[in-house]
């Protein structure tokens, strides 16, 4: 444009032109601009150029140059699931963290205190702090710790990813891996032995933990670590410097175990020496006259016989129990009948809760008389503590339901829907309620099936509670209307559960209400599982990226010709 500076001064400035083109000027100014533009070719050109620039910008931004990432296309369906994994992982991490806290801090402190003379021998201490239940699972916990570490790593990467570019995140991951590799390797490796008969010979010495799966397992040598064994017959004649964890039909411990012994067995006989604690779920428990347990003893058995010595307390649940040996601590026992023979020497208090008075030999050396409590057959409905406990139980049920619904919202919703198929739920409920435990017990007979059977029993037992939660949710929906959303469903579950719990407190009828609720709920859960494994014909949501023809947004003349 060939214009003199004087003429140029008369032109509209770009800001004014832009505001005019964008319809942002007030009436008076717009009129002036309009009048000027009618006359000035340069300003017309500028206005046109600005308008074209707007269109170019709009067109460039609106063009679909890249498809919607697949991660976003499936985000809607996956987001919630991902969140639930996070829930699960958070719980897992919390549990592992609690264990680490216990193992690294509480236990060493407790040991120090014991050495300083503060060691108590009450049964609560035995159960909670002595670690009869908790200690000794190191081998398995190691796996958990590794999983927790990896989870933390994944979280860190997810967190850092937002703040760093891909290269940076990759660097962090690689650095982490290098750090892991650089860490000192564990002093001992884990050995796996699987055969019909596994025999660790007398002269053999295994450095580290050993996992044994066999029809017959025999340890005559030395294991400088833990022995974890799945076998119908287990004999420990040698020296185990760690713990013995046994899932077996028959266990005989004739040798020396420096750590703890724990397991789920048909029968267990200890004639050797266990330096620390024993925890066992079994039919028959025998501590032979030569047997010795240095720590505490916890047993859930049908028949319990103690002739040897126990260094600390005993916590026992049995049908028939006999004490004939020495116990340095106290005893808390619950069962049908108890016999204390003349050879018994018990240094601590004895509390027995049973159906009849303990048969105590006058020659038995007891620190104090047996404190006997008769088992109450019926709950005292007049007692206020009964109602307090009912409230606590209801709260626990709601919490349990909340966790399960939050962890598995889709499955919970399916189970609630299945519960409305009353016939199918009831039929399947009978089958599962009685059939599954029988099948699980049969599975326990075989070596491979033992773990599966026990795991199934645990799941079955848990589902008895989950069943009541599901029934609570159905009843809540009856009262408050249906919903497909998670939190409203949880609210309905809480209301329904309170009602179910209230009904179960009704004398005489309550038990039946509970039974029906369990039957119904467990049937609904089974039906939901059954349906989940059925092939689905129509997918619920498209998995492939979906791009609509044109977003319902906005163009400044984007579709008009430039």
């Amino acid at each position, binding site marked *: *444009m060939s214009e003199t500076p004087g003429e*140029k001064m008369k*032109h*509209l*400035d*770009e*800001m004014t032109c*832009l505001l005019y*083109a*964008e*319809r942002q000027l007030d*009436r008076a100014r717009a009129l002036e601009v*309009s009048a000027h*533009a*009618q006359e000035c*070719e340069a300003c*017309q050109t*500028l*206005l*046109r*150029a*600005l*308008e*074209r620039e*707007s269109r*170019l*910008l*709009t*067109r*460039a*931004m*609106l*063009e*679909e140059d*890249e498809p*919607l*990432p697949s991660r*976003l296309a499936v*985000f*809607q*369906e996956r987001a919630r699931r991902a969140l639930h994994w996070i829930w699960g992982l958070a719980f897992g991490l919390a549990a592992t963290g609690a264990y680490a806290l216990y193992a690294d801090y509480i236990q060493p402190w407790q040991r120090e205190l014991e050495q300083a003379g503060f060691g108590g021998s009450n049964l609560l201490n035995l159960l909670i702090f002595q670690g009869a239940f908790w200690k000794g699972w190191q081998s398995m916990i190691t796996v958990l710790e590794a999983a927790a570490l990896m989870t933390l790593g994944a979280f860190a990467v997810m967190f850092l*990813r*937002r703040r760093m*570019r*891909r290269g940076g995140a990759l660097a962090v991951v690689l650095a982490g891996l290098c750090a892991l590799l650089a860490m000192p390797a564990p002093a001992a490796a884990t050995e796996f032995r699987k055969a019909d008969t596994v025999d660790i010979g007398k002269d053999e010495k295994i450095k580290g933990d050993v996992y044994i799966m066999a029809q017959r397992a025999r340890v005559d040598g030395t294991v400088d670590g833990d022995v974890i064994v799945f076998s119908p017959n287990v004999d420990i004649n040698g020296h185990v410097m760690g713990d013995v964890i046994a899932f077996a039909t028959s266990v005989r411990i004739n040798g020396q175990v420096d750590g703890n012994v724990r397991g789920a067995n048909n029968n267990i006989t200890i004639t050797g020496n266990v330096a620390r604690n024993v925890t066992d779920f079994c039919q028959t428990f025998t501590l032979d006259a030569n047997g010795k347990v240095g720590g505490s003893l916890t047993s859930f058995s049908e028949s319990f016989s103690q002739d040897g010595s126990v260094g600390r307390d005993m916590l026992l649940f049995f049908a028939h129990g006999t004490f004939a040996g020495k116990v340095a601590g106290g005893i808390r026992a619950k069962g049908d009948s108890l016999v204390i023979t003349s050879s018994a020497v018990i240094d601590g208090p004895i509390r027995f809760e049973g159906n009849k008075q303990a048969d105590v030999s006058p020659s038995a050396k007891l620190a104090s008389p047996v404190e006997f409590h008769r088992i109450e057959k019926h709950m005292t409905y007049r007692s206020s503590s009964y109602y307090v406990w009912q409230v606590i139980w209801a709260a626990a049920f709601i919490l349990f339901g909340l966790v399960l619904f939050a962890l598995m919202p889709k499955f919970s919703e399916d189970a609630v829907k299945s519960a409305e198929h009353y016939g199918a739920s009831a039929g399947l409920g009978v089958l599962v309620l009685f059939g599954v435990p029988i099948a699980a017990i049969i599975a326990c007979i075989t070596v491979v099936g033992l773990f599966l059977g026990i795991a199934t029993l645990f799941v079955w037992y848990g589902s008895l509670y989950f069943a009541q939660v599901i029934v609570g949710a159905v009843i809540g929906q009856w009262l408050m209307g249906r*919903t*497909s*959303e998670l939190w409203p469903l949880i609210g309905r579950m809480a209301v329904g559960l309170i009602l179910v719990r209230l009904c179960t407190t009704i004398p005489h009828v309550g038990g039946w209400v509970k039974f029906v609720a369990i039957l119904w709920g467990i049937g609904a859960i089974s039906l939901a599982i059954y349906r989940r494994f059925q092939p689905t014909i129509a997918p619920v*949501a*498209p998995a492939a990226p979906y*791009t609509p023809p044109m*977003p*319902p*947004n*906005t*163009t*400044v*003349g984007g*579709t*008009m010709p430039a």
Partner: protein
Amino acid sequence: MGWGGNAGLQYVIFADLCAYQTMETQRPGRMSAPGITEPAEAIARARAGDANAWGELYREYAPAIFRFCRRALPTREDAEDATMEIFMKLREKLGQYDTTRSFTAWLYKVAANHCWDILRRRKIRQDKETEDVESIPLEHPDPNQLEKLIEQRTSEEVRKALARLRGRARMALVMRYYSDMSYDEIADALGVRRAFVGVVLLRARHELRQALEGNAALAAGGVS
């Protein structure tokens, strides 16, 4: 009139002020423009807690929001993350949505606020930038040169140039020319006075032109 026979641009100079004023609401593609129907039923169901309806809305709007984020934020990963976060936020805030107003406008408002927050957290908006904008020289460019520059550039070149802009300039252009937000909405999102929005936009256009010229120079240098 000297419009080079381009009928499509003739409305730039309005026959009268009435046409000028009504043009703001009649611009093609305006979010609340007649003819653009929003899935009112799905919105209502989603507000009532229907997960399927929410899924419908997500599938309908996710591509547009992703593209918004892609244009506004520096990287693809940022845009993906931001899209997910925006929809999570939208779901939480759905109850607060005023049904008498445009859903799309509300959606973009949330998206713009979120993206601007991200940029702001990364200190992309700097005090210096504000100073630059304050001191912008309002020169009259050579209209013919400007027209030539715009005619020669492709959409892809514009996108590349856009990616090289600073956070606020890019954000302002995206809000105005992608999601067609009003000056008031832009002022609100960027936290500036309404009167300042035009300056921000003009400054952004200048930056874009510089980037486009830089691209051209680079291309020429590459060829020779």
